[in-house]
């Protein structure tokens, strides 16, 4: 199995709306894959379909080698899922909910559960309904991690949490990492966390996958370019499609190069003769903004 998750022209509808539109995605086994995209891009619907919580209108999804519609209890026991909208019985204590979940998972690791409970500062006697949102997410994380899943699916695990809780959750997730074939699929808007954690990125917009490639090559091909034009120079009217968000202010021109290379640099110089040109690397956050603002079709080397 080369891919922990693969979908083939996966399509999901809400009535007449296509929430997910012919999505073909490949998350390599052993990777931490971040599915990014603006609100309403179809991320949560995709995750729910992968877990067989929804049925696709057409297309297929395979999770750990199994068709999503055929996922049974034994398969789901190998998948950890954390979502903000998950229901957990609020009248139980943390200890009770652990005891409730444990028999369902043959691979439940009690030592790991203890370690996580300590690291997260969870009191087993505390009732779920008395917990803050952050603490509740820690409980969900504990329940998802203790069975040492082969695949972890995290839907917005960090949203609205303070940095200390985010750090704790991240360390918890990474504490599983010594297992071979262990994979993570996550959605998040916390771009600085994602930039460090994920090694593969899928960018979803309007239900479609715009970009899918390793983090490293994505960050390597995006550059913020600043041009100081000489007096009286003309602004080029024909601009390559890989220049995003082009703007001019007096003698300064700015754009985002989405296919940085030696050839691309030669093209900048040809377009702005005699200008001073500086190119800066971009954070994942800035790449996300540039991609979201310009939904121009982008050919990605790694996308299939």
């Amino acid at each position, binding site marked *: 199995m080369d891919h922990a998750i693969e979908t083939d022209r996966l399509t999901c509808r809400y009535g007449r709306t296509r929430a997910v539109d012919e999505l073909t995605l490949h998350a390599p086994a052993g990777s931490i894959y971040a599915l990014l995209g603006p609100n309403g891009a179809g991320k949560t619907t995709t995750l729910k379909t992968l877990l067989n919580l929804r049925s696709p209108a057409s297309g297929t999804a395979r999770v750990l080698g199994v068709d999503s519609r055929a996922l049974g209890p034994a398969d789901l026991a190998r998948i950890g899922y954390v979502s903000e909208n998950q229901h957990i019985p609020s009248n139980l204590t943390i200890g009770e909910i652990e005891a409730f979940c444990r028999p369902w998972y043959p691979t439940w690791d009690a030592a790991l559960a203890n370690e996580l409970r300590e690291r997260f500062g969870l009191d087993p006697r505390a009732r779920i309904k008395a917990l803050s949102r952050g603490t509740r997410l820690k409980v969900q994380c504990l329940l998802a991690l203790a069975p040492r899943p082969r695949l972890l699916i995290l839907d917005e695990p960090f949203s609205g949490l303070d940095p200390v809780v985010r750090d704790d959750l*991240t*360390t918890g997730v*990474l504490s599983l990492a010594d297992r071979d074939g262990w994979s993570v699929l996550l959605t998040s808007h916390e771009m600085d966390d994602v930039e460090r954690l*994920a090694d593969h990125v899928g960018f979803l917009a309007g239900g479609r996958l715009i970009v899918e490639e390793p*983090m*490293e090559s994505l960050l390597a091909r995006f550059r913020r370019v600043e041009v100081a034009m000489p007096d009286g120079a003309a602004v080029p009217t024909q601009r390559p499609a890989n220049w995003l968000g082009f703007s001019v202010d007096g003698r300064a021109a700015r754009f985002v190069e989405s296919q940085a290379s030696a050839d691309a640099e030669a093209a900048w110089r040809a377009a702005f003769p005699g200008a001073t040109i500086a190119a800066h690397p971009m954070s994942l956050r800035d790449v996300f903004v540039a991609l979201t603002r310009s939904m121009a079709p982008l050919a990605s080397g790694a996308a299939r």
Partner: protein
Amino acid sequence: MLPFSIALRPGEPVVDQVVYAVTWAVVSGQLRAGDRFPSVRALSQELKVNPNTAQRIVALLVEAGLLAVEPGIGTVVTAHQPGAGASTAAARRADLTELRNRLAEPLVVEARRIGVSLADLVEMVRAQWKSLDAAPRAAPRGAEPRE
């Protein structure tokens, strides 16, 4: 806890940042020959970075001659010989070219842009050189010491 100082900044490759921080720590004496270096797993958890990234960092530092994998012990800091990473004369020449083109040239360009004299620039480099010998407990530029 990590035995070197680093504060990761978004937008710069994590691998480059960590390799630089460790190199700084070795060159300044903050890390000494025989010191234990964190495992890939510990590095990943402390820095909150992808385990594959942590793996690459260690591999690059081993390749550069700063770390060595000792069977049964783990990864340790080597008795660093300046220039040890460059095993051949050609590799040494490549390192020098890199130093001149990627580091020295931008330094000179920036100095001329803001109007720093050659003598002042040389003095700045001299002071920086000495500060590494004098202050093994200091932190590299941009890094806050970690708890």
